[in-house]
């Protein structure tokens, strides 16, 4: 499972990392496919960050564009970790798969958590990881929030309306651009608009700036459906 996606990500990681690290990566990729794959992935996952570095993969090359998700902003370590996860996942017995992914996430430091969130839309039956993804949105670590909220198709596909709305509001709270939230165009609802209105009123009453993206989200609603003219809109 994950065969060609994992292989492609491995190639992207190799291209973005120094030659001396490729051997380490190849060895751990082989180990991930072995009988002891699950255990060795836990350790490889931990060490991948400093081994492979923070150089960005080439998100614009043909190989990258063939992937089911965009990899803009992914580092070599991100790509390698996702590849390792996908490779080991297939050998994990079905009832243990959620636990395996949760282990990598909850027992991962920041870089590992980022990789798990990026891998979620690539996993089969990924809907069952919705609780983990919703939990990830509770973080105040901005980079972690961005890994699930920005450029990631998972929330748009799997979050229910309340969770998706909370994600949008959290983006505004953290100063994360709402324009990167995939699926937001299709998911602006009257309830979300109500939350935006209340938030705007709250900011104005406090004498604080209203995030520019708030107005942008409103324009999506106007563009996608015929609506009553709004009163008091700036």
């Amino acid at each position, binding site marked *: 499972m994950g065969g060609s996606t994992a292989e492609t990500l491995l190639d992207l990681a190799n291209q973005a990392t120094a030659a001396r690290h490729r051997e380490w990566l190849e060895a751990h990729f082989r180990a991930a496919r072995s009988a002891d794959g699950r255990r060795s992935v836990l350790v490889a996952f*931990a060490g991948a960050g400093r081994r492979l570095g923070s*150089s960005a993969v080439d998100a614009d090359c043909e190989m990258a564009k063939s992937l089911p998700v965009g990899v803009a*902003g992914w580092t070599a370590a991100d790509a390698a970790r996702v590849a390792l996860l996908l490779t080991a996942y297939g050998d994990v017995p079905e009832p243990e798969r959620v636990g395996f992914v949760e282990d990598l996430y909850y027992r991962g430091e920041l*870089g590992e958590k980022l990789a798990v969130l990026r891998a979620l839309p690539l996993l089969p039956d990924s809907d069952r990881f919705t609780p983990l993804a919703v939990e990830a949105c509770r973080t105040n670590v901005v980079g972690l929030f961005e890994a699930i909220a920005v450029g990631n198709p998972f929330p748009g596909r799997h979050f229910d309306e309340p969770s998706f709305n909370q994600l949008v509001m959290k983006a505004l709270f953290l100063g994360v651009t709402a324009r990167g939230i995939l699926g937001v165009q299709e998911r602006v609802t009257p309830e979300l608009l109500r939350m935006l209105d209340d938030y705007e009123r709250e900011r104005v009453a406090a004498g604080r700036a209203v995030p520019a993206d708030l107005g942008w989200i409103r324009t999506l609603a106007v563009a996608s459906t015929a609506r009553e003219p709004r009163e008091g809109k700036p």
Partner: protein
Amino acid sequence: MRLFDPHIHMTSRTTDDYQAMYRAGIRALVEPAFWLGQPRTHVGSFEDYFLSLLGWERFRAAQFGIHHLCTIGLNPKEANNPRLADSVIELLPRYLEKDGVVAVGEIGFDDMSPTEEKYLFAQIELAKLAGLPILIHTPHRDKKRGTLRTLDVVRESKIPERFVLVDHNNEETLPHVLDSGCWAGHSIYPETKMDERRMTVLVQKFGAERIIINSAADWGVSDPLKVPKTVNTMREAGIPEQQIKRIAWDNPRDFFVQSGRIDAETLERDVVIDQRKVHEDNSVLRGQQPVVQDG
């Protein structure tokens, strides 16, 4: 002058402290894993604490412009807990492999019990396997004897002395630690342990080689600005700037760079919360839509 506090428990400090530390010139710190003031009762408490050092606390420090590194280990006090100690040791191979871990620590003696000695030896072995230096806590009670026994353990375990930082030194212990070839840390406290004035005298006597200072600030009466304050006291006493820089930046940097987990160049630069922003041209984080094939 960039300052380094290589022993400070930020998990018990507020953002006021981070702001003050940054203003005073601190740009890097090491937060060692220790106890929380009372014994933990579940191995999960240790695990979540390790994760908080690696995650939330690192992020918090970055928000204030400070590089945050940590040590991971089973501390001397809680090594005495027979129900948990082995389970904590089992966690270490995975956690020592994680980003930003620059040493095994704090390890060492508290009461000088045989159990403490067993786990000190065990964790030195883990450090050797992981290629990491060690941060040693010397006891506050019966310190001289505890430090001498610690140096014996270091020698017996054959970990190279340059990989060993023996902390919380005083006038009695420092000469022995320097003679052994280990690095010597000093925790500068408001009322107890070492202070700026005595530290300055030690530097005048022994020089700057392998001398390290820290605040060891924690949840008790302590001061996260003791490194800059000690720098000032040394300066006022006429200690050459070159020596001061060596003590307050070069030495801690050189010691922890040995871990291979951080490089000197990165520490010289301002901390960046998200490294990828440095590399991206078409960052989605600047509001552009990524190319995604929905499928």
